[in-house]
């Protein structure tokens, strides 16, 4: 081969299969570190094949670069707002595997499936690699220079009509966004993330004066959860799973889950109770009234609250909730016989017009049972409110959309969220978005909102950028997680840029102050250096000749987070208000089924639908892959003549959609559930065109107190469209037997013992 050809090939090879690795620490980005030799084969074929392949030496490597030897870099998982610490396994400049960071208090070394699949977002073939600008109605790829010019034109000036919408965020991204909005003089900052339980947070705030009090699941003897799927999709699943593991140790805690559709947590409950959707608060109130009969419990609440508990008719509640009176009394007995306990309120209890009141009723139980201070603990006070997590909710999306509709904003900037996909049809988010004169999207992927924008800025993956963040739900207050680039950008330096860098450049155009920092990296490291005095045990130089700064940086990067000093706060004093619940209404004759849009641990709210590992990970309950489906109780399905796989039309008063039925025993008879996550019209090859998004057909109902969308309040009607579609489930038996009754056929594959036996045996051991 001629020399120039080799060089040509090298140029293409360099982008694809050799990578720059910028670990930072002093000389990030300056040294060109190419992958080593030896095991550079990427697709290893099993068959012998004679190849004359290139082996590229490093040009000027750093000392720690060793081809063939793995290294681990600490960073933070950004797959959901929980903020687990990760260790990234690196070899030859490639990130190969994410593992939990054992010293991070959030996840203590474990990781969930979404964290594991973070790599597939990072290496996703559908990632945006070029900035795009809409020209003549079409998005066309442009050079970075042009994109920057456009950006400065659009965003680099004072503009009070600029609206900013981002997903849950925290740390220095949040701080920088705040600084940017201050600089442009815009007050239109909206935060929208689908799953954080905004209603619950508001109820907590009201009752315990803290939106996210610490929960000690491991200390509880009994957990009664009203639809809080803490093992799957509720706030910080890995952390709760860790606590759950402790909770299940002998003496074993008892878990009761009350919800219309069985979640992953429900599947692990000692008793799972299917409840008629929207009556969770009534059940809680009934339990409270039973408790109030005992002065021990009644004494903990004020008289006006007690008065509201007086006239609760257990039989009527039993009828309304579809939970027998006998069972309610048993629950009461459980609550009184286990202390401390913990009562949780989750999205399926809160997603109604009376959601706040339901949460109020449920949390009231905690006060009566004296769990506050035992399993519900106060937060410590941490400075730097700018860094605190912003979780947002549907109410803010609503204001954003309303603002767009009123023409209040001429420029809309979206970052880290996908409102056009998420918002129900009735909101008309896509039409409203189109009204803004200029739409800017910072995104890694061609999602729905991005493809509807005018300026598209492709940003780095979390594994390629510097950043800090705070966990949405922290177990140790004041933990500030760090991210560092664990490898050089997958698509090369000219393709994607760090969000922080782009925003910093914009800021520098408006506010010269920010010119102090030449990159987001220096911005973050400078900030961390200045924070040194308020950190718990800031690392010091360990190697002779190291400056204290270098020592500090090395120390914090190898830990993966810093701990801010915090002040001990006062114990929680619960503020109670009488619960005001509407009387439970009967079923709507026209729309006889309650619709539960159920989040899946895996696809989350749909943001992970483009990760093939998660698409192929079966749903934990129905074992379906690569699809959307309608869960339906066997009895209901039988009465309607439906079997697993049949295609049905689900119609609400706001719209309709078509999906396949999965006959599923873990669902209330009057309820159907459609999982979230699918139904993308954009979002790359793995997500596009698969399934449906149940949010689309939600009715315009909002929680009366918080204004959050009542996600569970929609009622639907079902009609059969056709027989057997191509539904794929790993529970083959379900398809064979035409019902969801996977049986062990007499094999002892999963054996069960009673908790009593378990405790006895563990004691002996």
């Amino acid at each position, binding site marked *: 081969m001629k020399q120039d050809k080799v060089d040509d090939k090298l140029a293409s090879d360099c982008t694809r299969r050799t990578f720059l690795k910028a670990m930072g620490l002093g000389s990030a980005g300056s040294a*060109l570190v190419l992958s080593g030799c030896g095991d550079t084969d990427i697709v290893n*074929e099993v068959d012998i094949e*004679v190849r004359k*392949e*290139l082996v*590229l030496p*490093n040009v*000027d490597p750093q000392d720690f670069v*060793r081809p*063939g030897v793995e290294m681990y870099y600490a960073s933070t998982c950004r797959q959901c707002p929980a903020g687990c610490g990760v260790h990234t396994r690196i070899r030859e400049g490639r990130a190969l595997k994410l593992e939990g960071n054992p010293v991070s208090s959030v996840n203590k070394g474990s990781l969930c499936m979404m964290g594991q699949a973070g790599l597939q977002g990072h290496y996703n073939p559908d990632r945006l690699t070029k900035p795009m600008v809409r020209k003549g109605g079409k998005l066309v790829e442009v050079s970075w220079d042009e994109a920057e010019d456009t950006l400065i034109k659009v965003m680099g000036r004072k503009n009070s009509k600029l609206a900013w919408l981002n997903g849950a965020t925290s740390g220095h991204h949040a701080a920088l966004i705040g600084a940017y909005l201050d600089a442009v003089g815009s007050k239109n900052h909206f935060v929208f993330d689908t799953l954080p339980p905004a209603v619950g947070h508001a109820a907590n705030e009201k009752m315990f004066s803290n939106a996210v009090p610490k929960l000690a699941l491991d200390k509880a003897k009994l957990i009664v959860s009203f639809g809080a799927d803490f093992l799957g999709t509720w706030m910080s699943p890995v952390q709760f799973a860790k606590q759950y593991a402790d909770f299940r140790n002998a003496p074993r805690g008892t878990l009761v889950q009350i919800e219309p559709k069985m979640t992953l947590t429900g599947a692990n409950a000692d008793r799972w109770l299917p409840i008629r959707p929207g009556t969770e608060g009534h059940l809680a109130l009934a339990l409270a009234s039973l408790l109030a009969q005992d002065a021990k419990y009644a004494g903990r609440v004020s008289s006006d609250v007690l008065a509201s508990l007086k006239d609760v008719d257990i039989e009527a509640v039993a009828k309304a909730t579809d939970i027998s009176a006998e069972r309610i009394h048993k629950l009461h007995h459980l609550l009184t016989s286990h202390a401390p306990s913990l009562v949780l309120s989750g999205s399926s209890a809160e997603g109604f017009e009376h959601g706040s009141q339901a949460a109020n009723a449920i949390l009231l139980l905690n006060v009566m049972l004296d769990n506050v201070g035992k399993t519900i603990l106060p937060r410590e006070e941490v400075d730097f409110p700018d860094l605190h997590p912003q979780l947002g909710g549907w109410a803010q999306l609503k204001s954003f959309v309303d603002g767009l509709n009123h023409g209040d904003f001429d420029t809309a900037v979206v970052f880290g969220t996908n409102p056009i996909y998420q918002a129900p049809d009735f909101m008309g988010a896509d039409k409203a978005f189109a009204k803004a004169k200029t739409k800017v999207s910072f995104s890694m992927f061609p999602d729905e909102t991005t493809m509807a924008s005018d300026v598209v800025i492709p940003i780095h993956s979390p594994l390629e950028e510097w950043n800090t963040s705070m966990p949405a739900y922290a177990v140790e207050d004041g933990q500030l997680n760090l991210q560092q680039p664990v490898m050089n950008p997958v698509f090369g330096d000219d393709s994607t840029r760090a969000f922080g860098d782009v925003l910093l450049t914009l800021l520098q155009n408006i506010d010269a102050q920010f010119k102090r920092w030449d990159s987001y990296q220096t911005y973050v490291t400078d900030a961390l250096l200045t924070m040194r005095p308020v950190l718990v045990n800031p690392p010091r130089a360990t190697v002779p000749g190291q400056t204290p700064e270098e020592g500090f940086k090395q120390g914090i990067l190898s830990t993966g987070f810093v701990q801010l000093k915090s002040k001990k706060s006062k114990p929680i004093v619960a503020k109670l208000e009488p619960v005001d619940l509407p009387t439970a209404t009967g079923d709507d004759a026209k729309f006889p089924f309650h619709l539960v849009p159920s989040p899946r641990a895996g696809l989350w709210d749909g943001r992970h639908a483009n990760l093939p590992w998660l698409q192929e990970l079966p749903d934990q309950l129905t074992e379906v892959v690569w699809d959307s489906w309608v869960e339906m109780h066997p009895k209901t399905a039988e009465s309607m003549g439906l079997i697993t796989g049949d295609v049905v039309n689900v119609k609400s008063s706001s719209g309709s959609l078509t999906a396949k039925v999965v006959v599923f025993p873990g669902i209330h008879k009057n309820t159907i559930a459609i999982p979230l996550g699918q139904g993308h019209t954009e979002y790359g090859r793995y997500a596009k065109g698969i399934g449906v998004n149940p949010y689309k057909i939600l009715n315009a109902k909002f929680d009366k107190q918080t204004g959050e969308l009542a996600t569970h309040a929609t009622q639907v009607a079902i009609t059969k469209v056709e027989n057997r579609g191509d539904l794929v489930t790993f529970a083959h038996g379900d398809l064979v037997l035409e019902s969801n009754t996977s049986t062990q056929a007499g094999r002892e594959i999963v054996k069960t013992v009673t908790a009593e036996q378990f405790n006895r045996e563990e004691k002996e051991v």
Partner: protein
Amino acid sequence: MWQKSKMPWISKFGQVLLIALASLILPTGAWADDVSDAEQPFEFPHVRHASKFKINCMYCHTFARRSKVAGIPPVAKCIGCHDHLPSVRDTPRIKKLFSYWEQKKPIPWRKVHDMPDFVHFTHKRHIQRFIFKDGRPTQQVCGMCHGDVKTFTVGRKVRALTMGFCLSCHKQFQGDSDVGKPMPAERWMIPTAATDRPVMEVEHPQPAVLDPEHPKTMKVAEVSKLSERLPKSVRDHLVHAPHDCWQCHK
């Protein structure tokens, strides 16, 4: 009767059959791959470095002792010396070297010893064992597989590096602890590794630099006695080449 009938085609058929059978039996590695003629960006004179200047192999192939791969030296390594060698600065090869350095581009060497991807060979274990524990000369140890590199210019593949080649050594280096004990892999299959003699005589790799006078050169026969001279604790750890398929193929 028999001599009357002519059957030339039968014998031809027989020939074909024999050739087909023979081809099965012959070492498959014989024609597996030969990249000795791989064209390199420029000719690197191993002979000068290793023979004339007696530079240790591991000075440049620095990862060999601590990684699976030996490592092609980074360009910086070459420059590190050649920056101080003005005498050869203007030769075409060095000019080319510097042109890569100035462009900060890696030199696109071609791989000479390319194992199939299901072979997970590790340099480290072999170097650690033979150079650092046995104390053999580096060039002898490396030469077992790579040939007498100090006589080459560019690297050439001089050994077939087939499985049989690997086994020919792994059979020899059964130490004390293995004597009399059937080798593990024998449990489910009957590899010749555990038999008295190999089924096919495969040429043993002769150490490339076999200076019989060199005090550190060991005769093949001595190698097996090596273990006797060592304390048992060391012996058990040292003289034990893996005979488990999953060591190399996983």
